[in-house]
């Protein structure tokens, strides 16, 4: 048990994220921690969780030791319930079949907007062209979005340089006014805390702290002023069962090391 209780940050993120999923949900999972977390949830407490991949896989069967290298390839599709064209799988989100969109993030702001397109140049630093949206914009536009990422001040910024995947845009009703009538940023999971968004202002809000983390520590590592729930529970440490399942899924630590 003592041995098992040691875990990497990525393992922690996967476990905390998995706990946010509910049985019976349909989850669109991106590659990396989201994929792993969804597979863990399915084996731990959501036997009836349906996992979708961007490449067109419906009801994926993620097999221990055989994690796909991306969500657009055959390893993710084999032994699934259905494979579809790429547009069709995103149209399922648009139609509303999917409860949760789940992805990693490079840069997030206080309204849950994500940037994976462009870092502006400043001073003597030139701009950086990032890979771009992929399905990220679609997922964030159409589902209740969960994001998991490492908690660094430079990643948690007041305003992202470029809104690739929309959260609550400029807060309050701005998302709805833009024409995005459904979904929105729902959860952010980091190694420090779990975040939701204020129902009215739509600003990011700490809703649970990870063991040993103080509110000020979260704030210090964040580039904007956070809201804190009045009642702040402490998340449970990863259990032996969670770690065991995770390590069966990813024995080589491809995604969790």
């Amino acid at each position, binding site marked *: 048990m003592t041995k098992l209780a040691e875990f990497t940050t990525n393992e922690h993120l996967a476990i905390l994220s998995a706990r946010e999923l509910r049985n019976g949900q349909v989850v669109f999972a991106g*590659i*990396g921690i989201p994929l792993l977390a969804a597979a863990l949830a399915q084996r731990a407490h959501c036997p009836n969780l349906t996992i979708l991949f*961007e*490449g*067109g*896989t419906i009801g994926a069967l993620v097999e221990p030791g*055989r994690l796909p*290298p*991306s969500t*657009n*390839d*055959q*390893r993710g*599709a*084999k*032994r699934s319930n259905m*494979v*579809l*064209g*790429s*547009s069709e799988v*995103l*149209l399922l989100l*648009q139609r509303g079949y999917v409860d949760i969109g789940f992805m990693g993030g490079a840069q997030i702001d206080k309204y849950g907007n994500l940037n994976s*397109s462009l870092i502006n140049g400043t001073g003597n630093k*030139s*701009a*950086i*062209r*990032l*890979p*771009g*949206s*992929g*399905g*990220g*914009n*679609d997922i964030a*536009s*159409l589902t209740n979005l969960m994001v998991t990422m490492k908690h660094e001040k430079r990643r948690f910024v007041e305003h992202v340089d*470029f*809104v*690739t*995947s*929309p959260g609550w*845009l400029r807060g309050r009703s*701005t*998302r709805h006014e*833009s*024409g*995005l*009538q459904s979904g929105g940023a729902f959860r952010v999971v980091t190694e420090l805390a779990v975040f939701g968004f204020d129902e009215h202002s739509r600003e990011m809000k700490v809703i649970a702290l990870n063991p040993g983390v103080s509110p000020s520590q979260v704030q210090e590592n964040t580039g904007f002023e956070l809201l804190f729930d009045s009642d702040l529970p402490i998340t449970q440490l990863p259990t032996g069962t969670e770690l065991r399942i995770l390590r069966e899924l990813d024995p080589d630590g491809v995604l969790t090391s």
Partner: protein
Amino acid sequence: MHLEKARSYSDLRERLSRRDRGLSEKVMSLEDASALITDGQSVGIGGSMMSRTPMAMIWQLIRSGRKNLVCSRSITTSEGDLLLGSGLSNHIITSWFSQGIMWGISKVMRMHVESGQARYDEWSHLAIGMRFRAGAMGVPFMPMRPMLGSDVLASRPEARVINCPFTSENILLVPALNPDVAIIHVHSCDPYGNARIEGLQFMDIDLAMAADKVILTTERIISNDQIRRAPDQTKIPFFCVDGVVEVPFGSAPHECYGVYEPMMNHLDSYVRKVNSDPIGGMKSYLDEHIYAPRSWNDYLNLIGLEEVLGAAHRGRSND
């Protein structure tokens, strides 16, 4: 900035009416197929990420010295590096451009795009799909809901937001994308171009219907009689196909569903080479792997027999 436009219907119909759509044999060599594409044309690329990329065709186009193509694809990975690094393309329309999930940002893409040598038009993944779909359907646009409110939309004046005449909602219209040519790798097709694609289809069917011309590379050519025994397995009809090239392992070092998985050792060494030196590393990869080999099989030999067969073993055995 030059804005691509949805083509007029009369232009679309006119171009299509001139194509030979009869049931005729179209089997040709990679070299002959590359002659169907001219400099500066817009080319839609089949597959996605590291799956069913028409690598052999891209390899040949570079060898044939084609330049300045406007390339569109759902998701762009290491083949995108080659497009830019070789000068085959200077304008990529896609939703995501890296070398693959595991290698971070492509230094080759960064160098070309940040310097302004090449243009990368970013759309959401669904938007790329809907643009091909509108093209496939012969309509000038498709309605969709994502991209609203984002900077992805703000960067794409080619799209339009309208007030829906039925529901008074904001709806995004994305313009049809009808490439001059589509290049697509398939599992099998007959000599006329009736093609089967197994497993993940990506956006290839829409792309094939949208383009003015379609070149298929195929793992193998099968008979029309085989096609007719299971017509519901045909995914692309012969009359939108203009060239058929048989190229086993034609997506290497990417994968082909049920036939081979990606050849990760080769890709790893490729990425190390070009990311450490986006100019010199790319030049050396092009020289050694694209210009030097006498044939596609020679290229496969450079990837290495063990790697190719290992990928085939994994591709075929894991169901």
